């Protein structure tokens, strides 16, 4: 093991007639980021640039089952590569195995290009880190092997800029500009979140970005809904059921989302993607590695016991001790927790292992606090499935049958049932006053087709997942059913693996950016339900103040080809791209070696 990145000078080897460059790690790479064998030998695929030869096809992974239009997206990617003369080998993979592959491979993506979707975790809409930090070489999520020292530095800096949100935002905006300018990946679009729900019987749907009105990631809709019809039970249909009732130690995603109706976190994200108070009502950054929080007063667990700071301390300690997968992001930078005071709601102090700017915005939002009095006797919390999970949340657990349904009922004592509090947290725009729903049922309905059927027949009140525009239109033909569209904060992106010589050439990346028709994809495939991204930026404009304006890359394949020719590439009779030769090759070699510089920065001539 160990780091094996003794990058040999130049990276150009003479092989046979032409010189060639193979895929490899170009710099020292921090070992602990990936696995132990992150070195050039571990690179599992071959992608070699050979002087004067045709550019070979790039293997491109996509997972069709992620979303219905994924294959269409893959075809668009293929088109854009083809339009600059690069053949593409599209491979459809199983989404479940791919992550394991990335991680186990120790080399990030095991192929040159991978297409990706992201889940709508709330903190992805609150904090820039989940997306930006992926460009940092010490992040596990950096499977595109991007390493740009300038960026790394800025990233480190913003991460430690605690307390001064503006300063941090500015840093982040600069990072976005630089990344986009470097064309480090292709950020294609933010597809809208489309939901359907019954609006005749229910009023008060909250269109949260990324989550829409009915998905599981936020609780605003269900605490704001007011029955207009006979029933006070709101039924939401989904296609996948929860697997267990143990929130912190579950490994799927659904348990956490659905059970967050039962548990509260320290903070939450508002429909406007601001952080709002949850169990914590306020915080104070004592120093770089110390944060103190004031806890809400008068909160009780569903079994009637009072909520105390000890519960917070206990939760974090349990999570750390027993490695709770779902709470990993929360406790990751916490060194220890102290109870500072027990008066009022109480106050706790978090001692952090390192300065962490995202601690409140990212980590605390995804937290959930479990009752000490119920869990302290559990020997092995990772193998525990409470029959009756007790939290402090707005809903209390009623019943769950695996693969079938989850039934929750209103917990009257929760602060969100108070109209004023709710109005404050949700905002005037969406707030509807009233007693709210009595019961919420999440039923598992197998597949989309049947979901739509049950929606039309009135068996369910809402579909708890994104549907396609057409499906929404179809479903909303029924009386009282409406299509609801919300903006999104998770992008559709295309990862370019930076160990590939072709992608090490910034000129190529820029050219490719010009060859990708983002708008047409949104118009045609997404029927306009989405937003094409200006520049190569993963952060949505919704994410104020962190979002930074980035220069759009104009769609112009001809210009892209010209750029490539200027950089020394040529096109053969079939319009396929050919690696540079002679002097142009040396220039290419230099660009690859540098990785993030333009031709003009390197003083390279026009080879066309």
């Amino acid at each position, binding site marked *: 093991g160990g780091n094996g990145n003794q990058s040999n000078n130049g990276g150009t080897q003479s092989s046979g007639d032409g010189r060639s460059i193979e895929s490899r790690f170009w710099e020292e790479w921090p070992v602990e980021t990936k696995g132990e064998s992150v070195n050039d030998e571990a690179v599992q695929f071959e992608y070699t640039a050979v002087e004067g030869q045709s550019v070979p096809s790039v293997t491109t992974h996509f997972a069709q089952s992620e979303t219905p239009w994924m294959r269409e997206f893959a075809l668009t990617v293929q088109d854009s590569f083809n339009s600059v003369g690069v053949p593409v080998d599209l491979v*459809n993979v199983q989404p479940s195995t791919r992550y394991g592959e990335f991680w186990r491979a120790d080399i990030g993506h095991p192929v040159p290009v991978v297409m990706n979707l992201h889940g709508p975790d709330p903190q992805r809409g609150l904090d820039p880190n989940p997306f930006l930090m992926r460009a940092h070489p010490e992040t596990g999520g950096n499977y595109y092997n991007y390493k740009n020292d300038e960026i790394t530095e800025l990233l480190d800096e913003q991460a430690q800029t605690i307390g001064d949100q503006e300063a941090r935002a500015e840093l982040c905006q600069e990072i976005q500009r630089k990344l986009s300018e470097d064309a480090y990946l292709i950020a294609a679009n933010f597809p809208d979140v489309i939901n359907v729900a019954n609006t005749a019987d229910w009023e008060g749907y909250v269109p949260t970005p990324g989550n829409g009105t009915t998905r599981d990631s936020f609780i605003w809709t269900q605490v704001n809904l007011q029955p207009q019809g006979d029933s006070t039970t709101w039924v939401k249909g989904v296609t996948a059921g929860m697997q267990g009732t143990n929130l912190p130690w579950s490994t799927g995603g659904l348990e956490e989302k659905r059970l967050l109706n039962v548990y509260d976190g320290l903070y939450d994200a508002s429909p406007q993607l601001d952080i709002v108070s949850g169990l914590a009502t306020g915080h104070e950054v004592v120093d770089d590695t110390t944060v103190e929080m004031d806890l809400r007063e008068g909160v009780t667990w569903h079994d009637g016991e009072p909520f105390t700071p000890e519960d917070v301390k206990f939760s974090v300690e349990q999570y750390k001790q027993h490695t709770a997968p779902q709470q990993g992001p929360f406790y990751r930078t916490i060194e220890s927790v102290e109870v500072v005071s027990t008066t009022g709601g109480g106050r706790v102090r978090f001692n952090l292992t390192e300065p962490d700017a995202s601690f409140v915005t990212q980590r605390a939002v995804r937290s959930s606090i479990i009752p000490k009095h119920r869990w302290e006797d559990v020997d092995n919390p990772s193998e525990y499935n409470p029959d009756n999970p007790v939290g402090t949340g707005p809903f209390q657990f009623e019943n769950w049958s695996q693969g079938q349904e989850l039934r929750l009922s209103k917990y009257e004592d929760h602060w969100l049932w108070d109209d004023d509090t709710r109005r404050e947290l949700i905002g005037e725009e969406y707030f509807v006053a009233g007693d709210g729903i009595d019961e919420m049922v999440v039923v598992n309905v197998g*597949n989309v087709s049947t979901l*739509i059927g049950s929606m039309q027949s009135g068996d369910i009140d809402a579909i708890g997942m994104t*549907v396609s525009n057409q499906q929404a239109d179809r479903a909303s033909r029924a009386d009282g059913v409406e299509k609801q569209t919300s903006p999104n904060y998770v992008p559709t992106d295309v990862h370019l693996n930076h160990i590939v010589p072709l992608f090490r050439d910034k000129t190529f990346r820029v050219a490719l950016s010009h060859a990708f028709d983002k708008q047409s994809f949104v118009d045609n495939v997404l029927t306009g339900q989405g937003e094409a991204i200006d520049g190569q930026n993963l952060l949505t404009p919704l994410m104020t103040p962190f979002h930074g304006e980035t220069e759009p890359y104009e769609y112009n394949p001809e210009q892209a080809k010209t750029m490539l020719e200027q950089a020394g590439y040529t096109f053969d009779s079939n319009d396929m791209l050919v690696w540079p030769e002679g002097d142009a090759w040396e220039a290419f070699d230099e660009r690859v070696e540098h990785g993030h510089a333009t031709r003009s920065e390197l003083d390279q001539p026009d080879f066309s």
Partner: protein
Amino acid sequence: MSGYALDVETAKDRLQEELSRARRTLSVVLEDTSAKIGFAIIMAFVFVGLFGPYLAPHHPIEHTMRSGGSMMRLESPTAKAPMGTTSFGKDVFSQFLAGARPTLIVGLFGGIGTGVLGFLVGLTSGYFGGRVDEALMRLTDLTFALPFLPMALVILSFVSPNIWLITAVLVVFLWKMPARVIRSEVMTVKERTFVKSARARGAGHLRTMFLHVAPNVLGIGFLYTAYAFGWSIVAGASLAFLGFGDPTMTSWGRMLEQVFRAGAMRVAWWWVLPPAIGIAAVTTAVFLVGRAFEELVNPDLQTEQE
């Protein structure tokens, strides 16, 4: 073992004889009306399997049908798209034509592979008996015990599926069927006097096995190859339906998966029916012809013809 080698002429003779036998058998089989219809369907299927991709008016996946610049989504059959379009504007007719080929490949090679492997195992096992038989039969028991679909799913989830791999996996799981039947048939044949007689005349095991025993179970072998053709199509389609088909190819099973996934089953009958009926028709056809053939080769069913 000299005398085992067959000279070219005899081989040719034999081949010719077998061919004319096959032709005669076929004509007898085709006296059955349902077999005749089945045979016609199979021929049509083979034709589409061979030429379908060339006949398809559009690329089944990459071409997007548009009318007046906008994508033709989930449109019912029109002159432009005689079988309608998919939810992303692909031509169902082209997919249907192109989708026959993977189905044919899986069926054909799965069938032949299964038939040949099963035949050889059954022959060896039945002929030698004793320990060889015991070992081989335990092996078939084992493949019976290992559930086909789950195991195939597991395997295909770590090796990315391609059509040949799928075919191979099918063969690995299906050979047991013909093997068992052939074995029991061989056990009867090998007790027949002419086999003993061949041994008495000095024929070695290989000669006896392949010259005397094998030809007399060939009929059953073919029958099971035919059935395996059907099973392979079914199994291949099931895998594709569960999302483990060859992702680079449009097959009928995969078409069904996509309608199902797209949640369009309720509306897009034009998208569901062609692959569904295609699969049903071909497999049924294979089995109908197989049944008629079975009436001929299964000695137990001949009571009244005597």
